């Protein structure tokens, strides 16, 4: 698997980061310049998450085991 952005990476980490940002912004002890950077980062993360969440088609693949013991994934023929 190439280093594609997975849900786990994106959603879990991004949401955690977003919550951190909101928390520190709410505490109000962030210098203004940083606060603006934080805000921009937050908006970017939120957009990325929303993008990821908007994919609409569920993909089902079938796991099968070859003779050699290796695994292959096939599109599920059952629709």
């Amino acid at each position, binding site marked *: 698997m190439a280093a594609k952005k997975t849900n786990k990476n994106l959603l879990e980490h991004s*949401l955690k980061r977003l919550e951190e940002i909101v928390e520190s912004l*709410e505490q109000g002890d962030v210098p203004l310049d940083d*606060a603006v950077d934080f*805000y921009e980062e937050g908006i970017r993360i*939120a957009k990325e998450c929303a993008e990821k969440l*908007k994919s609409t088609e569920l993909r089902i693949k079938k*796991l099968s085991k070859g003779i050699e013991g290796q*695994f292959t994934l096939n599109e599920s023929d*059952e629709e």
Partner: protein
Amino acid sequence: MSTEKNVVTITELTRQIKQSLETNFPRMWVEGEISNFKHHTSGHLYFTLKDEGAQLSAVMWRSRVANLTFSPEDGMKVVARGSITVYPPRGNYQIDIEQIQPVGIGELQLAFERLKKKLAAEGLFDSTYKKPIPEFPDRIGIVTSETGAALQDIRSVLSRRQPSVDVILAPVRVQGAGAAEEIAEAIEQMNRYGGIDVLIVGRGGGSLEDLWAFNEERVARAIYASKIPIVSAVGHEIDFSIADFVADLRAPTPSAAAELVVRDRMELLEDIGNLCYTMRGAIDTQMASFHERVASLLTSYSFNRPRDLVREFSQRVDEIDRSLGVSFNHIIRTAHQRYNSLRHQLQALNPKGVLKRGYSIVRKEGRIVSSASLLHFGDGAEIQFHDGTIGVQVEKGK
């Protein structure tokens, strides 16, 4: 008419019957259906065992009731082991049951209870071994029948809630001979394949026999050994399967399992929206407070002090400038006076001034002649007057 009346007491007769029956009908297995079931407050069980043609009173003493692995009830078909006894006060005979098992499902139920007890003793159900279910799985493995309702249910829930996930199906038979092996192997294969974040193992509802594969030890051990967190989804709302006990999380149905493994994207989007809103609010508040701070600084005494200082300084500069002007004029005037006086003095010393007054300078060969003895008859000389020079020759010597 008989002349000899052989009379025996009821007690004696009953005693003989009791002896005869209890000797001739030792411990045996009987099969029948339970009716008139009573669980007496004393803890003993009283009921009737019957079939189409006859019925038999039955009793089970409290000490044996404790070993029961199921709850007998009216209408249940059972096999019971016991011996015939007679209860003289009521003049009836009954079976004194030592052991009782349900017929049919009873065997399965017993096997279930035995396995449950065994695995529990080994610690397979301990909560310390439960793995947490990831909050945002990327790839969800499903071990179920490819044609069953369970897969459809899971698919529709995932499509609605979180279609961005990948679903990897390991198709297996979920009932009948060999189903347990297939399920267990699929779990092991999912683990070897890797990259799966959470596994749903299950099937839709059915009879106890249909669901049996999920009560097999082989499946329980595969679930226990799995490195991937497993959600069991054996479609029976009420009864638990062995798989349910071993799994990291039990879902009552396949749909419920799908609900449990993914967050709803609409909810998530709403959460994200709320976070953005809060963030915006926080930054607006912060900006407003900065504005306020700046405004209050602008009007503060300290901040205005430099301006006051500047004003004070410029006033001082003006003052200095004025006094400087006064001093300067004085110096200029004095200097001017000195200049004039020096100029006069200088003028007085100027040789040209002397020449004007009638004196003249005599030069011989460019050198000033300061003594008459230096000039001799016939010498040429030059006389400088204030307005010019003339050449002369000495006519008379001294």
